[in-house]
């Protein structure tokens, strides 16, 4: 219980006031996105109408978005690319993290440093040479172009995150399995990986989010409407020159955020674990 009025006042100042401020500041843009997407144009473009609420909600922008653009195709492309690259990166990341975390071999230190460094190399450093490479491979305007390049961001991340989890499994478990006749590979798949399920989930969810967030490679490699992802489609086709289709843009932004938000809402704790694993020693 609160210790009288003074305690309540202090609690208000130290907790509810700043908490309220942060919630409003962080969530207002999403509220704005949502109500803009259901405002009729006569409300959107009338500066004399109070803009903070919707007076007559309509779904025209959603209907137009689905009718007049390739939004469903973009969504399908985005999800397909995100799922494929997440799975590939998780598999290759696991294969890299396991020996780095659990065995001693010549060259281990160099590979570990290499993984950390590639994880930190930002895309803008590589996109121009990468565009030339993709051109020479003749992969322009194919989803393969992004499926091939996204893992450059995701594999080092997955490997780095999983190394921490793999290190936490006691060596004795693996040794016992090997004395029982299991090979190194069997010991990994049957003993260590099941114990690291939370780590694999964190890495997978995080990789999926990163893949959905990617924009630069998709913008460069995907210039035809039917291969675009949601962010690229929205930016290039709902903004034409000086004309902004605000209602549809907001509808696309909201719908485009749904897959990430749904996955996130189911696995918040794994997501947070993935986020903090790299920076907080457990």
């Amino acid at each position, binding site marked *: 219980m609160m210790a009288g009025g003074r305690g309540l006042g202090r609690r208000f100042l130290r907790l509810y006031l700043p908490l309220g401020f942060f919630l409003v500041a962080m969530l207002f843009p999403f509220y704005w996105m949502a109500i803009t997407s259901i405002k009729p144009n006569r409300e959107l473009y009338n500066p004399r109408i109070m803009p903070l609420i919707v007076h007559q909600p309509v779904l025209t922008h959603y209907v137009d978005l689905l009718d007049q653009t390739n939004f469903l195709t973009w969504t399908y492309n985005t999800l397909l690319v995100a799922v494929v690259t997440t799975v590939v990166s998780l598999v290759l990341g696991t294969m890299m993290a396991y020996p780095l975390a659990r065995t001693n071999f010549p060259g281990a230190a160099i*590979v570990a440093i290499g993984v950390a460094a590639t994880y*930190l190399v930002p895309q803008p450093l590589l996109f121009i040479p*990468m565009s030339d*490479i993709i051109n020479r491979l003749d992969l322009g305007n194919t989803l393969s172009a992004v499926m091939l390049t996204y893992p450059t961001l995701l594999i080092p991340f997955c490997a780095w995150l999983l190394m921490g989890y793999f290190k936490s499994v006691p060596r004795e478990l693996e040794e016992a399995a090997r004395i029982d006749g299991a090979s190194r590979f069997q010991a990994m798949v049957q003993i260590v990986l099941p114990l690291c399920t939370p780590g694999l989930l964190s890495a997978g969810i995080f990789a999926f989010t990163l893949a959905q*967030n990617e924009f630069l490679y998709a913008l460069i490699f995907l210039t035809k409407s039917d291969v675009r992802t949601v962010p690229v489609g929205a930016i290039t086709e709902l903004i034409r020159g000086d004309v902004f289709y605000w209602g549809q843009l907001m509808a696309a932004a909201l719908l485009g955020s749904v897959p990430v938000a749904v996955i996130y809402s189911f696995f918040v704790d794994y997501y947070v674990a993935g986020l903090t694993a790299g920076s907080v020693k457990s």
Partner: protein
Amino acid sequence: MAVGPASVVGPARLAARTARRRGVLEREGVFSWLMLAPGVAFLLAFVAYPFFYGIFLSLQDRRVASPGVFVGLANFVTLAQDPIFWQVTRNTFVYTTVATLLKILGGLAMALVINQHFRGRNLARAFLLLPFIVPTVLSTVAWMWILDPTFSVINWTLLQTGLVTQTFSWLGNATLAMVSIIGVNTWRGVPFYGITLLAGLQTISPDLYEAAAIDGASVTQRFWYITLPVLKPVLIIVTMFSVIFTFSDFQLPYVLTHGGPANATHLFATWAFDIGMSAGQLGMGAAVALAMLPALSLLIVALTLYLRRE
């Protein structure tokens, strides 16, 4: 324990089979390198090779769809004499420095607020992290509309409250456009700092605070002598990490301002994109991107070493 068929075979046969299987493949080095090979090969082909190919490109006069001509350091010399290059450099440093300071302060405040006990804490944490998980381009689109020259809700609010009589052109004025991209970057980054710092705060034992309080330490003293020292390693890692990706930011300024007005919000990444992709000068574009390298490599080396030490 389920370790495959081997465990149901008799001991003698098991030993023989195991011995055979523990041939070459079971040697530590061989197993490790076989596992690493696909990933290492992929990263060499699609990170290391593009990196060095980028250096090679930057030494050429190379347009899209035509062969390159080796020009040595000419691209870099041209850049050094271009006032826009120096403007972009200044923009990038201003953007990174100011946004990082704001994110540290905001994130620290957010972490301290959520670290208190209250009902719905996990829910609040989940909602506060939303800006960081929603795809940047999509949330930036919402900000474009919030900062629209004619229909900005910020302008509307300011006018209604009577604080101003004239509206602001948030994305049309050079200074305000920089303020805007810094503001949106901060909005997106504060939750990242907040949630990771919160995880750091939660490792501090309450006993420590109690003991300090009994010894007569004030709230401020407890913050300076307990909270900050414990948070320091987390804060260093999170900040270096965030600085790398703020310094090389592309999505946000590209969508919000396209580097405008008059290059006022061009960062290295967006300018490199304009030159390399929009204008098709691959060599010059690669040179602009490489201009990030000195600062970036310092940060990457420092952070890599720091992470290894941990």
